[in-house]
């Protein structure tokens, strides 16, 4: 069975500090991978997606970057956090690059920037 694991579960960081969030998918080769951001009480905003290793597409600019160093790993990072980065970050995967496929979500990372 496929599993998706996000780390850490929660982070409290200072403004201006760096950040790295991770996501690992096991049991599925070459998945499409996605990062979503959810402001407190807000909707989901797609940030990045990746179809293959080393290839990441940005959907919206939020002073964040993403990388896919391995087939099963997706990293979200920034060198300098802003207060506006606070929220809930969700990693997701889908089977293929067709948009009628359902998404499988991780449990998310709650980020508080102080």
């Amino acid at each position: 069975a496929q599993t998706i694991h996000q780390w850490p579960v929660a982070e409290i960081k200072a403004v201006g500090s760096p950040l790295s969030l991770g996501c690992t998918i096991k049991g599925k080769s070459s998945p499409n991978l996605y990062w979503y951001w959810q402001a407190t009480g807000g909707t989901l905003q797609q940030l990045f997606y990746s179809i293959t290793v080393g290839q990441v597409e940005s959907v919206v600019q939020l002073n964040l970057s993403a990388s896919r160093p391995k087939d099963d790993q997706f990293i979200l990072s920034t060198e300098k956090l802003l207060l506006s980065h606070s929220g809930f970050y969700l990693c997701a995967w889908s089977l293929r690059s067709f948009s009628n496929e359902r998404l499988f979500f991780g449990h998310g990372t709650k980020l508080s920037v102080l």
Partner: protein
Amino acid sequence: AQSVTQPDARVTVSEGASLQLRCKYSYSGTPYLFWYVQYPRQGLQLLLKYYSGDPVVQGVNGFEAEFIKSNSSFHLRKASVHWSDSAVYFCAVSTNNNNAPRFGAGTKLSVKP
């Protein structure tokens, strides 16, 4: 570009009552439609999806949704809610262009005992 509107940010119903959560989309072609549920501090889980065929689709836990093309709607329904249905419900739409679904703002459902 496609968009999704969930006009009700919060809905409160009593346990055992019927439920309808509204979703309207904007897209000129035939959309792919989804309902996801998010329990506190968790990721989203798929409730149901519509691609084609019978416009009424059945999902998990007694949920169903009806695709009405003329109204551009995909409302979620349940005949009798349980307190454990309290969660945030997201409607999502995608198209045949390889992008991930676009989500609505979500509706927070509170079920009173």
